[in-house]
């Protein structure tokens, strides 16, 4: 066997990158189990009471549920709009004006704060919409570009003569979309879902304007909590969020393999 020598500097560099990536996670994890009333690292003592504390504070319980509901609904709606849009953009590329695909990406170019503020002014206040509904609209707009983009990328390499083959064999167009097109862009749809879901769950800027009395999201609640308290509850909430992401990734890994995200 031939082994190529790895340069020591490369090893050092790689280790540094890992420390840089993993460091904050380890610090948060350590702080969350510290048996002190303030945030500290390395942890002093070992306790799980800060995790129990999350569920003792009703605002956390409520906002976790709100955030999950929002993320699922906003992502679902964005996919319902985004998949047909991406399909149309790719299927009728020649017939449609080129600026059309840009329109769907515009929300990405608008700063999230501006999106939040304008929704507050025109929808929440202007139309007196319920807080949750406004948040849902905001998050849907926020994640729609990701859905259109990622599904589009998947459809760009889809050969539409496959669809024509199915139609010529007697399959009506709508049925063909579900039995032939969708299964072949499945990985794109799942990638879009994950990206959109994570974007929604983590959003602060847009939500900041749209949350109100009684309805808030987890990141906004974390922000509010930090302003008043400096105990390790924040660290344990963060660990919970991390575990949620790990769980999503584990499911993806089990069902599809992680490599599809790199495609």
């Amino acid at each position, binding site marked *: 066997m031939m082994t190529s020598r790895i340069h020591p500097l490369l090893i050092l560099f790689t280790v540094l990158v890992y420390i840089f990536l993993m460091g904050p996670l380890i610090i948060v994890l350590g702080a969350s189990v510290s048996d002190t009333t303030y945030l500290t690292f390395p942890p002093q003592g070992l306790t799980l009471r800060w995790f129990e504390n999350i569920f003792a504070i009703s605002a956390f319980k409520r906002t976790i549920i709100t955030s999950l509901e929002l993320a699922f609904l906003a992502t679902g709606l964005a996919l319902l709009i985004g998949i047909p849009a991406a399909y149309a953009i790719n299927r009728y590329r020649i017939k449609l004006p080129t600026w059309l695909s840009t329109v769907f990406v515009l929300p990405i170019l608008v700063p999230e704060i501006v999106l939040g503020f304008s929704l507050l002014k025109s929808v929440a206040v202007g139309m007196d919409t319920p807080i949750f509904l406004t948040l849902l609209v905001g998050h849907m707009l926020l994640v729609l570009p990701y859905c259109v983009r990622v599904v589009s990328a998947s459809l760009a390499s889809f*050969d539409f*003569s*496959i669809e*024509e*083959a*199915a*139609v*010529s*064999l*007697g*399959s*009506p*167009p709508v049925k*063909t979309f579900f039995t*032939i097109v969708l*299964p*072949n862009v499945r990985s794109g749809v799942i990638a879009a879902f994950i990206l959109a879901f994570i974007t929604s769950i983590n959003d602060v800027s847009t939500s900041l304007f749209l949350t109100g009395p009684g309805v808030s999201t987890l990141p906004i609640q974390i922000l509010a909590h930090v302003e008043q308290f400096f105990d390790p509850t924040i660290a344990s909430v963060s660990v919970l969020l991390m575990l949620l992401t790990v769980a999503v990734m584990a499911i993806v890994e089990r069902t599809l393999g992680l490599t599809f995200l790199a495609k």
Partner: protein
Amino acid sequence: MTQALTVQNLTAHYGATKVLEDLSLSVGKGELVSLLGASGCGKTTTLRLIAGFLEPTSGSIRLGDKDLTRLPAYKRDIGLVFQNYALFPHLSVLDNVGFGLKQRGIAPAEREKRAKAMLERVGLSPLADRLPGALSGGQKQRVALARALVIEPPLLMFDEPLSNLDAKLRVDMRVEIRQLQRANGTTSVYVTHDQEEAFSISDRVAIMNAGRIMQFDTPEMLYQRPANAFVARFVGFENLVPMKVSARDGETVTATTPDGSQLKLSQERFGAIPDAFVLAARADGLAVSTDPKAEGIPATLGLRTYLGRAYQYQSDTAAGMLIANGALSSPLEPGSAAKLMPVPDQCCVLQPE
């Protein structure tokens, strides 16, 4: 049940551009007709119109006694074989072949039986459970063929089915396609830009240019009796010499070439010769002679190339550059003066353009 296809006065536009003009075509029951032409000639547009993927501006498409013109593509019941195979990547070979049967509501057991029998016919039974991604190009095209044939369509259409295969496989596959098509007696339309492919596989060929059919005939007739200058050039008549009739004596016609020299042609061979016409000849149809008394087009020989069966000369004449083949026994030097004599059964007479 196989049916005859009748296309009448079909006109089609892409936006404001007219891509097909007043095209009529009839394909008899069990006949294989090729649409042959360079890219952009309208052959693929014609196929897509018949398949129902495009809508004509005017005209009609009939299959047997069924009017297809405004019928949605999925109701047309036409078997299609695509250039890039277009197999369903997420379905096994067996499910690919069974797809059309499934759309027709055929029970799973019967579907599997028929799909397997079809795979047997194209020699792919051992690969039934594979996904298309694991097949070679030739195997993919066999699956595509099986998938189109298993629904026993009244009409089968091929869109450049062999372009993505290598040369050797192309020849094998076209023989295979022809055999399957003959055995089933399926009326077929075959689109290709490859003249050899079209001529070898077809009962009749429609040579297309700029959205029109230039000539629709058997390969033999197209090759020997092109109807116009476009088709003549297309099938390899390199030399087109405009001529005028100067005298008629019974069946013998004396024609004047552009430089004024006289040629005698027999109407028994060429049919009625109009007063102004174009003489078309392949390189083999112009014999090179150095005999000064020979009757022919005077030429100065230029570049000589060796073809194996003959020497070919780029020859400068009053009618422009002509290409003629000369005997191997007597190679001539560039610059020699010679006469180019039309070989009657290798030439034809065309209407002037």
